[in-house]
């Protein structure tokens, strides 16, 4: 069943006037999450930009029960909530971790892996802005090769950690990637994920205008280019079955992919990048898709 904009509820769970930056993909993602699941969810938020987006006490911009937790602990806290809900007989409530890439691929990885292995009944969403944005753009395990950050001033020398595939090998019922450039695809995946009991993981690419150095009006465009260039393949793995989704379905054919330079040239974080480094990124994309081809065949 395809989600359409018209079919989405009008209800907003992230209120206007919140503390996010202009063009923020995390706040947009939160809005979409609210529209996907409605009021029946509890949010767990580790230290991240979302700690700020809520706004300061005694006010809040989020109309959902939400607990802020220490950096490394979101998945474990969510496990505790889901377990308590079950034994207290409140079984219709979704427990959703809303964590950044630092809180997921770096400091939160152990708790995440533990919760996935145990099969705890939670939906973990990583909104991946590819660096520690809340502390002011430091490199994370999710920062791509070549990108400038304040701790990789000459560009990062390692590729991005492939977290979604790492979650796939945990043998959980649902893993998917999404991009803020394709909001309906994201909503559909959230809804599909929550039909499963057990551990579900969605990795949302969240281009950050401040950290990636592009105008705030271009968040969606950058999110789309990431997918169209093949840098960020959209797929889902349902009960172990891998399937490309949306526009990524046609991108196994390299000629259908937009050249990655289109994606790179609109981001200031790649402004220093050399021809050689672009070639390394192209090879990375080729390998990514060759790996996908192997999985499919």
């Amino acid at each position, binding site marked *: 069943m395809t989600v359409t904009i018209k079919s989405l509820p009008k209800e907003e769970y992230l209120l206007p006037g919140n503390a996010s930056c202009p063009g923020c993909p995390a706040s947009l993602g939160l809005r979409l999450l609210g529209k996907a699941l409605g009021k029946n969810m509890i949010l767990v938020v580790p230290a991240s930009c979302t700690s700020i987006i809520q706004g300061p006490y005694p006010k809040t911009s989020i109309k959902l029960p*939400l*607990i802020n937790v220490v950096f490394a602990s979101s998945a474990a806290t969510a496990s505790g909530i889901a377990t308590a809900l079950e034994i207290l007989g409140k079984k219709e409530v979704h427990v959703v971790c809303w964590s950044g890439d630092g809180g997921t691929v770096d400091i939160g990885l152990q708790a995440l892996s533990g919760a996935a292995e145990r099969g705890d009944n939670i939906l973990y969403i990583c909104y991946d802005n590819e660096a520690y944005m809340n502390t002011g753009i430091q490199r994370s395990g999710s920062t791509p090769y070549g990108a400038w950050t304040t701790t990789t001033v000459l560009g990062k020398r390692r590729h991005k950690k492939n977290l979604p595939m790492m979650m796939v090998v945990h043998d959980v019922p649902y893993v998917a990637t999404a991009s803020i450039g394709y909001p309906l695809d994201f909503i559909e995946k959230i809804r599909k994920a929550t039909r499963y009991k057990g551990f579900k993981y969605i990795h949302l690419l969240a281009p950050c205008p401040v950290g990636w150095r592009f105008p705030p009006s271009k968040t969606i465009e950058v999110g789309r280019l990431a997918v169209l260039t093949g840098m960020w393949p959209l797929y889902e793995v349902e009960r172990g079955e891998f399937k490309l989704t949306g526009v990524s379905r046609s991108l196994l054919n390299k000629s259908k992919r937009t050249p990655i330079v289109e994606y790179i040239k609109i981001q200031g974080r790649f402004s220093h990048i050399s021809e050689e480094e672009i070639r390394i990124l192209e090879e990375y994309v080729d390998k990514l898709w060759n790996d996908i081809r192997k999985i499919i065949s």
Partner: protein
Amino acid sequence: MERVAVLSGNHAVAYAVKLCRPHVIAAYPITPQTQIVEKLAEFVERGELKAKYIRVESEHSAMAALIGASATGARVFTATSSQGLLYMHEAIWSAAGARLPIVMAVVTRAIFPPWSIWTDHSDLLAQRDTGWIIAMAESNQEVFDMTIQAYRIAEDERVLLPVMIGLDAFSLSHTAAPVSLLDQDKVDKFLPPRRAFSFLLDVENPITMGNVAFPDHYMEFRYLIQRAMERAKQVIREVEEEFYEISSRKYGGLVEEYRCNDADIILILMGAWSGDAKVCADKLREEGLRVGVLRIRFIRPLPIEEIKRVSLGRKAVIVVDRDISFGGAGILFTEVSSILQQNNVTVRGFIAGLGGRDVTAKDFTQMVRQVYADLEVGEKRSRVEWYGVKEVI
């Protein structure tokens, strides 16, 4: 008729927890605590305890999971020791800051390096600034009783703070002793189901917990914890009185006073070795030396009034620490000194028994004799020394 069972300290904790009907247990193994969570896993798997058990991948996650479960309204439990407690430290602050009535047993154990699995109070005392109520038991019976009382204290509306209960590695944890158990119906009456206060994660009443507090607000959150700690003193005494009605057992509130009334010298300490200190007091009294023991049962909230009342007018108090704050002094010594500083009481500190080194009644006797000898020659200065430390290069 209530049963008396021969139980290790670890199993005394597990049986007490079972009687408290927790909803969620999250735990990670570490020596010498492991038997507690093994026994609880057994209770859950046999269906004797209707709880959910989360076998987490670390102590940090154990506390995080309990924070989530407790914030959802569940009654929860975990246990740990030493490195596990230190690894959990960040989440320990979170639990108290979120005002969650979590209960945890801590089997006190020395800290690495070098590796040591034996008792030492440094792990427990390193948590003293976190906002947890911190207790320390002397016997397996007391561990059992304290665990049940801990939930009543933690869940009291005047308190709403987590509680950790210390018991010494091996001397309690793995040593069997007779423990009078309690019938389930008595415990159910003493400890009704956790009452839901307003601040829970609930989709019908959404709230945001723990968002940013600017300098305008942060300080009041801290002040409220301090006020709850002050109120906890009275709650601890009340809960013990009520527990006495179902068990005929009580220990004295925040401290236990043993032969203190007419004492010239008071030994102040906590944990299992307090029993040896009591033997020391009995023996020296046979010689006409009036020695008493003030056993600290709760280090947080700090029993300021009790320590002051019992210490004033004595020739000296001797504080024996199974811990050391490097570059400072023993932690109990520092606490006691802070209370007595303006009262002209000689406070003598001994650092002893670190990493489980055996300390017996004979050793306490030697400490007391030394202080008596010093007093006789007019030496009244307060100071700290290491007891029984070998000569090192």
